[in-house]
Structure formats: structure tokens, C-alpha cells
């Protein structure tokens, strides 16, 4: 299964500068493990040692925040888009 993963600027050191990469997995957790095999070090930037998502990392599955789906256990389908972003201040 191919999942498109959009990578924020701050993590592009791990993807040779690529803004988006492809990955595989039946869940976000598996997808991140798959990315780690080609982009060593990226998993540690996204996930805590206990396996939970890092506090200032937001991951969106088809634009929906995975914290409101099933967290890193959220399941994936072929053609899904995953976006990784740092938490920033909004508001006016």
C-alpha cells in the first residue's frame, strides 16, 4: 500500500530534502516504522520512547488530526495522505 507522507521543512534532512515521500503500513505506527527503514532517525523525532506521539508533533490523516482518530494506531488505506507538522500558534 502506498501512502503519501508530507514532510515539514524541519525534518527534510532525513528525506534528502524531499517535501513528500511514500511509505507503507496498515497503521500510522507501521508507516512510521517503514519510513525509519529508509530515513533513519525520523521515528525518534516523531514518537516518544513509550510509543506515543511527541507533544509538539501533529500528524494528520487525510487532514484529520490522528489524536482524534486512534492516535498512532489509526488505520491506513491505500491512497491516504499523511501530513506531519510542528505545532504552531494560530489566532489573531
Amino acid at each position, binding site marked *: 500500500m502506498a501512502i503519501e507522507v508530507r514532510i*515539514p*521543512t*524541519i*525534518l527534510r534532512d532525513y528525506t534528502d530534502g524531499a*517535501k513528500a515521500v511514500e511509505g507503507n503500513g496498515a497503521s500510522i505506527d507501521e508507516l512510521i516504522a517503514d519510513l525509519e527503514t529508509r530515513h533513519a532517525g525520523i521515528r525518534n*523525532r516523531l514518537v516518544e520512547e513509550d510509543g506515543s506521539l*511527541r*507533544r*509538539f*508533533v*501533529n500528524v*494528520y490523516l487525510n*487532514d*484529520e*488530526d490522528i*489524536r*482524534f*482518530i486512534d492516535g498512532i494506531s489509526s488505520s491506513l488505506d491505500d491512497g491516504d495522505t499523511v*501530513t506531519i*507538522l*510542528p*505545532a*504552531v*500558534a*494560530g*489566532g*489573531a
Partner: protein
Amino acid sequence: MRYDSLIDAVGRTPLVGLPRLSPSPEVRVWAKLEDRNPTGSVKDRPALHMIEAAERDGLLTPGCTILEPTSGNTGISLAMAARLKGYKIVCVMPENTSEERRELLRMWGAEIISSPAAGGSNTAVRVAKELAAEHPDWVMLYQYGNPANPEAHYTTTGPELLEDLPTITHFVAGLGTTGTLMGVGRYLREKVPGVQIVAAEPRYDDVVYGLRNLDEGFIPELYDAEVLTTRYSVGSHDAVRRTRELLEQEGIFAGVSTGAALHAALGVARKAVKAGERADIAFVIADGGWKYLSTGIYTAASTEEAIERLHGQLWA
């Protein structure tokens, strides 16, 4: 309607249906026209509430200087209230915000300190906190952490929505300070069993996130994920497309962040239609399009051209 002064005229905004954009008579979308507030944005509510709370607490006394990190609307609201109440005001805003916003702030008498574009509002917050430490006599109301911000929506926006739309099933608003969603969300959850509270978070171009360190992100102190049902990230493409649709189809001239909220509202509406459920979805028109006119997005020949013009600007 008659009020003693402009400050008393905050709130009580119209709720209007969107007959063309609503998918069916059973699934209806409603817009809360917060651009009808005295300075033209939803921020008049929290700004006034924060000032009055600080006055009650004795933090703000005549002649005081107010300091606030703001990309525009909150600063404009605070500056109006400050002028009428006799305070000075300093606003810290990212340098990549529109010229209209700067002119409006100056017009109300605010002093503007620019923060670097990189990092967006995060950087403005940091710079404001540094200034607050250097000037202990300045009063930072701090919209990201001040409980009077959501309280304004809990006591006014929420009750207004329920009064006008007792059949409400969903509330959708932009996620910034989180004040609107936290305040209205808490109120509706107490009164309407099963109500869904949906956040539309702006997703900017790379330049805004560029230098963000993943270990030093920013989550507003007011944010409580428990209040939300879900949260969508909306990119500039969808935000601009929906802003233009709102104008073309319903005649509502709104700012770009409203396009993001509309996008999430229509996504929720589509889900309800698919599930065969009835829905009354209210979303917030946070401000009118006036402050974004110079970008040309409303008259650009295509959505693509409009997005090109917005590139790199902080639009929410």
C-alpha cells in the same frame, strides 16, 4: 437596537443560512456573522472581556500600557477599546501580515513592533513575552492563556447560537488561540447532548513552519482537547477556494480563515448526508474580507492565481 456606546454594541450578531452551499434541506449550514462586531471581527468579544476582567482585578488602571502578541484582529479590537478607555497599546505582530492590518492598528493609535516572519505567531508570542519581562509595568492580556477569552464565548457567543439555532448539531470554528472553540464548545456540550465541536486549523505555506523546532512547539495554554470532537488541518488552497465560493454563491465577503472553517463545515455536512443524518451546522465568519483586499484573491481569474498571490502571508 440601541446601545449606550460602541463598546456596548459588541456581540448579538446575525446567524444566516447558506441555502446554496447547504447540501440538502436536512443538512443545513449556518454562518455566524462575527464581522458585524464594532471593529469587524470576532475578536471584539474576547478583547473587551479580557480588558474588563483585568480592570475588575485591578491589573489595568487608567494610563496603563497594554501589550499583546497579535497578527491583527485582537490587536485592532484591543486598540479600539484602549482608545475609548484611555490606555496605551503595543502590538507585536509578524512582519508578513497585510498592510491593511497595520494601518488599522495605527489608526486606532497602537504602536506596532514587528516580529520575524519565520515562525509566524510563535515568534510574536516569544517576542511579546520578552518585552513583558523588560517592561514589568506593561500589562500583557495574553489571549492564548487568558481564561477571559473563552469565557467571552461561553457567556455570549454560545448562548446566542443556541437561542437562534436550538436544533444545532455541529459547531465549527477556526483554531487559533482556541478561545472560540473552548468557550462555545463547553457551553454547547452542557446544553446539547451529542453536539459535535469541530476545529479548522490553518495549514500555512512552508515559510511559516520553516524554522520551527519540533521540541519547542507552541500549544495555547487555553487548549483542552477534551472539548473538541475532531480537528482538521486546512491548507491555503482549500481556504482560498472556499472563501471565493462563499462570496460567489452566498454573497458573503469574508476573510481567508473563514474559508478554512467553511471547508471543515462542508466536510462535516458531506459526512452527515452520507450517513443519512439530519444536521444543523453553525460556523464562524471570523472577519470580513476587507483586510485581505490587497492580495487580490477575490477577483483573481482562478483559485490557483489567488493562491499564488497569497503565498507566504499569514492568513489566519
